[in-house]
Each structure stands twice: as structure tokens, then as C-alpha cells.
């Protein structure tokens, strides 16, 4: 570095530190962070957090983030999806050596092994595909196109069909493996996640993350979709009332019960307190098979302790115990299924409904809690049932639990780098340690940094007022201000002091933690946009929609005032002008009419819409709530034109989706 440059940097530093610039800069930090005691610190925001900037790139590391895993039939190999490494890891179960790292599609989620043990199928969430991996050679031999965001997988007993839960297109792909193509697409619940074949091989159960459509501000209802393997049709939708985020599922060996993990949100209550499960509770759903089988919910929380974000469940070979990872509380709960059976047999239906909210019952069936590393996710049992493997996602590690001793007896490091600021932020984001009694993590309401499709009544505005639509945290960089009211100039403010006061109701993050957390949030991005062609070209429909988005004249030739054109408030590249706007969207609970203009990235996956979530679909923004032509002039549009506009809106944001073979 030339001395002249050094001198210049020193001079600037001196000006900042030694002159009134110091006070200005410190005031700026305090304003942006919302922390009146914050010291002067420029680096975290202006260097580390600049997305795509030099330092950010230097600091990017190749984390593995093991998410799900499968064990070979002989127990000698572990197959681990490494979410952030786009790879399937082959691990020697005897000594923990990573034998092979097989490149698959982007953001691999689950792995299923063919009964012959020679082929693995890996779902690639960001590639909308399933990789077919030949295990002896360790190579991907085929890539099969499926729906959007494939997550859980399950093979039929004979290995001829593979069922895939498509997390963003809300459906289930039925793949014919002999022909290497999708045979059928079935409608799932919203954002299906896990898939399990029932022990009798006759049905496949699929969990869902979000509630099915329900009337505005009513109790969410989320389904487990049951598919008949013979009929290839959905035969039952077992609904879990007041629950959502059904992530994991497993069956008892006899198939008398299926157990799903669940979250019971309290989004309809004024969020005035968090203790005693006033924000969220966490538990399991117990589903009896058959069309009229009961669906029972039981909590895994305690009166004064909460076990956030249950993610996966496996049931031991004897069907006596279930193991549940709590990815926010960093524990595995061990559940005595005999005690669960006794409880549900001895209890009348009316009481069972009440039990769904009972925090005291877990003492009857939770045997113990086994502490794990950060963010325990997928689970798999060894064939003899004695070793339980836990993917410790944010440790880049597997834990091995002895299922008799009920403790971690070994850990298997997969070889990830040391945590940097973003990684530390990821741990904070996924940990419930920063909420009162571990009531929730950031992830609880923002799974995978996205949203939970719910609306909330937060306290600061008064009870029943200013209902807010919970937004995705993806692609937030350079979209300040934040909050629907645009109150927060930065995410530091958003996640700082007031967040602790009104939501987590425990210690605020320290400034260093806040910097890490925000660094992580700003690193989140949407999945590739499946409505954009790989070529980047718009279809004729999308082009017509784009013309409408940019139009300046109505169909009958009247000029549209600039403030009522879509493009004015939603200009590229972020499709927001970062301003507040009053577009006539105020609802009955609002005292104000001005709201922050949201960016429009990957809008298709973010229902409900508007600041208070009243619009269940994109159409409703204009058909039900845009009648006064203030939120864009729309009243002259034909229905076909509105359809075109919506098809264009779906293309905004995100990178184009890649093309895979065999798409329908």
C-alpha cells in the first residue's frame, strides 16, 4: 500500500475520531442500532455486511450444514445431505470418516435409500430436482425434475415409486423410477415437508408447514396428507387444528400411530406476554391410521420451559420410544410412547382436545431431554436401533446418541470451517436461548428465514389493533426501512431493544450478537424463481403483464397519474422505492393508512398479502382491496389482464430457476 493511501486513511480516521465527526458517527450508529449505549463501530455494517462486497466474499465459507441423513442397511455408512455444500456426504459410521463428498443439486434436503442399498435419491430444494446417486461409484447418474422446492422423500417398498414433497409448489410428485419420470402430481397441504411410508407399505404420509386456507384471523388448520400407494391418490387429509409447522413424521413399527412434530402458534391472541405458552407451544401430533383415525395433539413443553422448533422424529424399533429434535432448544426429547398410548386411551375426546394446550402433561411421557450441539435437525437410527444419529446443522457435525443410555456418546465432525460472523448469526437466529424461557427462536416464525404465513396482533400498538402480516426475511438487504410502518431504519433497530421489549421479553441481543444476527439475516436469499425461465426471457403472458406493470395509460386512453402506476413505487431492481405510501389498503384495525412499500421478490410464495394479511391471494389485493384505484389503477383492467399482471409479478426477484430433465 502506498504511503499516500495510508496517510489518507489515517487522516479520514482521525477526522472521524477526533472531530465532531465522531459524535455524528456515534449518533448514527446509535440511531441505526436503536441502542443508545452503542459505541462507534463502522466495520460490521459498512464492511462485513455489504452483500457481495469484498469482505463479505472473503468471509464466505464453505459450511456443510447437515440437514437430513440415512443409514445404509448394514449400518456401516451414513448418507448426509449437506445443505450449504450442495453435496451428499458419505460417512463411515465406524470411525466417522467422511469417505466421499458427492456433488448433487442446490440446497439438498433429504436422502432416501433404495431397498437394494445401491442407489440414493436426494431432493434438491433449489434445483427443483431429485438427484439419483449410484452409491458404489459415488456419482449422480440421473437428475429428475419435480415440483418446486422438493424436501422430504419416500420410496415405496419395492423401490419402484418415489414420493417427493414439493415445499414451494404445495404438491407431491410421484416419480416412476423405472421410467425416470414423474407419473403424477398430487395436491398437498401448504409447503409439504416430510414424507414417510407407513409400515404396511400401503400409504404415504406427508406433513405440511403452513396452514391450509382458512378465513382471515381464524385458527390455522394444517394437514398431514395421506396418499394411497395403490390408488396413487390422496385418500385422507388428517387436519391438525391450531397447529402448523409439521416438520417431521414417523410411524411406530406396527403402524398403529404416526407421530408428527408440530408448533401451536398463538397468532390470534394479543402478544402481550410470552410466559405459559402465550406466543407458541411445541409438541407432537399423534395420528391414528384409517379414514376416521383420531388426531391428537400433545405438548412437549413444560410450564416454565419451552422446547422450540421440533423438527424431526424417529421411533425406535420396538415402538416404545420416540426421539424428537428441537432445533431451537438444542435438545432431543425422548418420548415414552407407551405412556402416550395410555394417556390417549384413558382420556375422553373432550379432554384430549384440552390436552393440546396442557403444559403439565409432558412430565408423563417425556423421559428425558438430551442436550445436543447447535440446531439439531434430521434423525436416523442405526439398523440395530442402538445408535441415534443427529444432524447438528450449525455445528457441521453429527451427534451419536446411545438409545439405552440416552446420552450423546460420540460426535462426528464433518469438516466444516470455524464459525464466522454470519454463522454465529445463524446460531442466534435458530436458537431459542434469546427468548423468555426459550419460548421461540427467530426461526419459529421465520422457518428457513421465510415466513409462517400468519398474521399477528403485537402489543405495542394496542390490543386488536394494527394486525401485521409476518413477512419473509429473505432478500431484505438494501430494502430499509423495515416494519410495515417503516419505523425501523435498519435491521439493527428492528431486532434490537424494542424486539426484546415487545417480543422476546428477555435480554436484548448484545451489540456484537446483533451485528451477527443482522449479518445472517442479510445473507438470506430467496430460492431461484421458478416462474422465470432459465434463459431469463419472459413468456408472452409475462410480457403482457410487464407492459401492464409499466403502463402509463388506461385501456381507454386516460393517463395514469405517476403515483398510481405500479412501476412508480415498485421500480426495479428491488421493486420498491423505499418510501411509505398510502394506497387505500388500511384495514379495520389500522389507525394509519401509510405503509412501507414492500419489495416484490419471489412474491408467489408469500401469501397472504398486504400489511395485515387480509389478501389471501395476489388477485385479492386488487379485486377486494384495490377498488379505489390507489394501489395502482386497476379498475379498467379485464380479468385476463389482471391474470397477465399477476403472472408477471410472480417472475420478480430471485435468480431464474435452472432447467432439469424430465419436467412435465
Amino acid at each position, binding site marked *: 500500500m502506498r504511503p499516500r493511501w495510508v496517510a489518507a486513511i489515517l487522516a479520514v480516521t482521525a477526522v472521524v475520531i477526533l472531530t465532531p465527526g465522531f459524535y455524528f458517527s456515534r449518533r448514527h450508529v446509535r440511531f441505526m442500532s436503536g441502542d443508545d449505549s452503542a459505541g462507534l463501530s463502522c466495520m460490521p455494517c459498512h464492511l462485513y455486511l455489504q452483500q457481495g462486497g469484498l469482505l463479505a466474499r472473503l468471509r464466505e465459507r464453505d459450511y456443510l450444514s447437515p440437514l437430513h441423513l440415512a443409514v445404509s442397511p448394514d449400518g456401516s455408512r451414513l448418507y448426509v445431505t449437506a445443505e450449504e455444500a450442495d453435496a451428499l456426504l458419505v460417512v463411515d459410521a465406524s470411525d466417522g470418516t467422511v469417505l466421499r463428498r458427492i456433488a448433487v443439486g442446490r440446497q439438498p434436503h433429504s436422502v432416501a435409500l433404495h431397498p437394494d442399498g445401491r442407489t440414493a435419491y436426494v431432493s434438491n430444494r433449489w434445483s427443483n430436482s431429485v438427484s439419483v446417486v449410484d452409491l458404489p461409484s459415488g456419482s449422480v447418474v440421473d437428475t429428475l425434475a419435480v415440483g418446486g422446492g422438493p424436501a422430504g422423500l419416500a420410496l415405496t417398498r419395492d423401490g419402484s415409486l418415489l414420493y417427493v414433497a414439493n415445499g414451494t409448489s404445495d404438491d407431491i410428485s410421484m416419480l416412476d423410477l423405472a421410467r425416470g419420470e414423474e407419473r403424477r*402430481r398430487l395436491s398437498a397441504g401448504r409447503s409439504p415437508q416430510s414424507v414417510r411410508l407407513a409400515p404396511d407399505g400401503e400409504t404415504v404420509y406427508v406433513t405440511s408447514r403452513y396452514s391450509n386456507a382458512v378465513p382471515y384471523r381464524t385458527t390455522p388448520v394444517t394437514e398431514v396428507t395421506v396418499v394411497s400407494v395403490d390408488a396413487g391418490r*390422496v385418500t385422507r387429509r388428517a387436519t391438525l387444528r391450531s397447529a402448523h409447522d409439521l416438520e417431521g413424521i414417523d410411524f411406530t413399527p406396527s403402524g398403529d400411530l404416526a407421530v408428527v412434530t408440530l408448533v401451536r402458534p398463538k397468532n390470534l391472541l394479543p402478544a402481550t406476554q410470552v410466559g405459559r405458552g402465550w406466543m407458541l407451544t411445541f409438541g407432537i401430533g399423534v395420528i391414528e391410521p384409517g379414514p376416521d383415525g383420531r388426531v391428537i395433539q400433545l405438548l412437549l413443553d413444560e410450564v416454565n420451559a419451552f422446547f422450540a422448533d421440533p423438527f424431526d422424529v424417529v421411533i425406535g424399533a420396538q415402538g416404545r420410544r420416540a426421539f424428537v429434535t428441537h432445533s431451537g432448544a438444542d435438545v432431543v426429547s425422548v418420548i415414552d410412547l407407551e405412556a402416550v398410548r395410555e394417556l390417549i386411551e384413558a382420556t375422553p375426546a373432550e379432554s384430549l382436545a384440552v390436552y393440546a394446550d396442557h403444559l403439565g402433561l409432558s412430565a408423563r411421557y417425556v423421559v428425558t431431554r438430551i442436550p445436543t450441539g447447535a440446531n439439531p435437525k434430521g434423525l436416523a437410527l442405526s439398523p440395530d436401533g442402538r445408535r441415534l444419529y443427529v444432524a447438528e446443522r450449525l455445528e457441521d457435525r453429527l451427534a451419536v446418541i446411545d438409545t439405552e443410555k440416552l446420552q450423546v456418546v460420540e460426535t462426528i465432525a464433518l469438516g466444516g470451517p470455524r464459525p464466522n460472523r454470519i454463522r454465529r448469526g445463524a446460531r442466534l437466529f435458530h436458537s431459542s436461548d434469546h427468548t423468555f424461557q426459550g419460548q421461540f427462536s427467530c426461526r419459529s416464525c421465520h422457518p428457513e428465514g421465510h415466513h409462517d404465513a400468519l398474521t399477528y396482533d403485537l402489543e405495542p400498538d394496542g390490543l386488536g389493533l394494527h394486525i401485521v402480516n409476518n413477512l419473509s426475511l429473505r432478500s431484505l438487504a438494501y430494502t430499509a426501512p423495515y416494519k410495515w410502518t417503516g419505523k425501523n431504519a435498519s435491521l439493527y433497530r428492528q431486532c434490537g431493544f424494542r424486539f426484546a421489549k415487545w417480543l422476546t421479553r428477555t435480554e436484548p441481543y448484545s451489540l456484537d450478537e446483533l451485528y451477527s444476527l443482522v449479518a445472517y439475516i442479510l445473507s438470506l436469499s430467496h430460492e431461484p424463481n421458478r*416462474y422465470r425461465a432459465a434463459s431469463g426471457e419472459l413468456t408472452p403472458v409475462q410480457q403482457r403483464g410487464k407492459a401492464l406493470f409499466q403502463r402509463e395509460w388506461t385501456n381507454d386512453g386516460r393517463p395514469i397519474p405517476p403515483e398510481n402506476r405500479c412501476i412508480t413505487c415498485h421500480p426495479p431492481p428491488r421493486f420498491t422505492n423505499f418510501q411509505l405510501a398510502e394506497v387505500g389498503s388500511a384495514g379495520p384495525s389500522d389507525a394509519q393508512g401509510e405503509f412501507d412499500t414492500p419489495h416484490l421478490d419471489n412474491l408467489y410464495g408469500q401469501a397472504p398479502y398486504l400489511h395485515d394479511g387480509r389478501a389471501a391471494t395476489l388477485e385479492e389485493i386488487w379485486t377486494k382491496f384495490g377498488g379505489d384505484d390507489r394501489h395502482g389503477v386497476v379498475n379498467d383492467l379485464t380479468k385476463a389482464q389482471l391474470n397477465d399482471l399477476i403472472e408477471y409479478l410472480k417472475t420478480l426477484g430471485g435468480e431464474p430457476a435452472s432447467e432439469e430433465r424430465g419436467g412435465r
Partner: protein
Amino acid sequence: MRRLRGPMAAALLVTTLPFIGTRDATAQEPQQGSVPVYHRWQTFTTADGLPSDKAMAVRVDGDRVWVGTDRGLAVYERGRWRSYGTEDGLAHDVVLSIDVHPETGDVWIGTLGGLNRWSAGRWETFDQLNSGLANDVVYGVAADGDYVWAATAAGASRFNVLTGEWTIFDEKNTAMHEPWTYGVHAAGGMVYIAAWGGGVLEYEVAADRWRDYRDPDGEMEIDLFPHDGLVHDITTSVSYENGVLWAATYFGLSRYDGARWRGYFDHDSPLSSNFINFVRARGSVAWICTDQGLNAFDGTTWVTYQRDSLAGGAMEIHNGAASVRRRGATAIAHNYVLGVDFQGETVWVATAQGVSRGVAHWESISLVGR
């Protein structure tokens, strides 16, 4: 199965259908060229559990029979009727049309208030406010492949179930005369739309190609030149099966085999009435629902079902000059027929005063030449 052998035959065997109740599950389907004969009818009304006697549509899905009425949807399964109304998620009490996706089994229901999907107990509503559906009045619905088609009062809507994209077909982008569509049939990559005043539109899905079939003489009152094309532009229903297109109008019936059009009227054929509400073909046989009774017709042989008294009704078989008429103690519930569908050998008929189930009869019937 023997085929009818010409009008001069003094005595013909019309049909020999296996009686479903006495045969195993592999009992054969009616063969092409045969017109099944039913003269045992069982009628279901509100007394049996239907929400209303006025049945607007009927659709069979395996063991289930779906019936749309003016007061909700009913399903018949394992000998029992169960009703669904708006409180359950039905978009509107008046159900006009029903189709079942052949692969997924999802039931698509057209109502006066939008389109429903019933999927293993889950209800979804698509209407003109919450979706890209052209209009809430859904006269006809058809589900095939990745698409669901809805014939609405403001054009035909196509919903791509994979992408959620809605496309509207109306007078602006098709040859539709007016965007008032009454019926839609989709199968095997072909879509046919009955457009009020616009004849029949044909859409080839793979090629994304439209063509239209119109009444060449354009006359509203008469069919000026027989068999020159569609009998009338005011079409109400359309069905395509075995390479034959059947088009129902309020002024007669048309049959098009890809080469030749034929027109059928009540004055020159056994067709019960020119006022046809609905047509559905099965194999080579079209079932024609009129305001004066139900006809089954394979291009040669007609079988007509009418109720003529409280006690019962008549079944007539015509083949050219030969015919036979039989009275029976049972009959379809009412002569105003709005829908028909098939469950194995059984036929289900939606009428203005109940739903009738006809059980195929195992016997040979002799026709007597006139």
C-alpha cells in the same frame, strides 16, 4: 355382442349386458356399438338424504357418486348420502357441474359462486375475486392432465394446477362469438367448449391450437341444410369420445365423426326433445339429457327413457323402422334431465325431481319392425 344389422331386420337383439349385481368385478363394460338398456330404476330424493330434489349434475368417481343440486352437493357412498353446503366450504349452494380428475381423484365443482376443489375432504374455492377465474358462474368443468377447465358466463378459464396460472379464453383470443360458455369436455389432450351462440370450440392442448365448429347456415330458427355441420350455434354441452364429437344444443343434437356431421331432431328421430341440457358419451353411445326424457344413442340405435306416470314409465328402442316399447314399474325420476354418468354397468341420472340409478338388465330384447 352382436351389432344391429340394418333396418329391415324383423327381430334384433339389442343388448346383452351383464347384470352388475350378479357378476364379479371384472364384468365386462358395454361394448362399442351396443346401447345398454335399463328398465329398473331406483330414485333418490330428499327423503333419502339428498339436500334437494333438483339435481343439476351427477358425476361418478369409483364407489362415489357426486350429485350437484340447487341446495348443495351430495355424495353417495356405501349406501348413504352425505351433503355439503357453503358451511362446509362449497362456494355456492347451486352446483351446476362436477368433474373428477381421472388421476388425482380431485373433485372439481362448478357453482353459481365459483369453482371448488374437493380433495380428500379439503375444500378450496376459486372465484373471480380470489383467483384468475373468469366468472363465478361455472356452468361446466373438466379436469384433465395438468389443467382444469371451467366454462363460465364470461368465457372459459383454464387453471394450471402445477403453476397456478389462470388463462381466460373468450371472444378476444378465440373464435368465440360471445364469452358465454355452457359446457366443457377435456380428455386425451383435446378440449371442447360449448359456447352459447358460438358453436363448439376445439382446443388441441399439445399444439396450443384452436378451431371452431359453427352452424354453417347460421339460422336460429331452422336447420336449413341438413347435416351440413353443427345444427345450431347455441350449444349447451359437448362430449368427445371414440373420435366422435357430440354437441348438444337447445335446437337438436349434432354428431361429428371427424368426417361427417349428422344432425338429429325430435321431429325426425327418436330424440325426446330438441331442448338438450347435457350430453355425455361413453364408448360409442351418447347419453342425451333433454327436457322430455333421456336418450341413449350410438349413431344407429336409440333408447329412450321417459316417466309417464307416477307409477312408472316407458323405455323405447328404435333402430330405423324397428322399435319396441316397454312399460316398467320404475322410471327415471323426472323427464327434465340435467345430467348423466356411469358407474360400471349402472347409470346415474340427475333430474329436476331426484336422482335415478338405472341398473343394467341382462336380457335380449326383440325389436319389431314397423
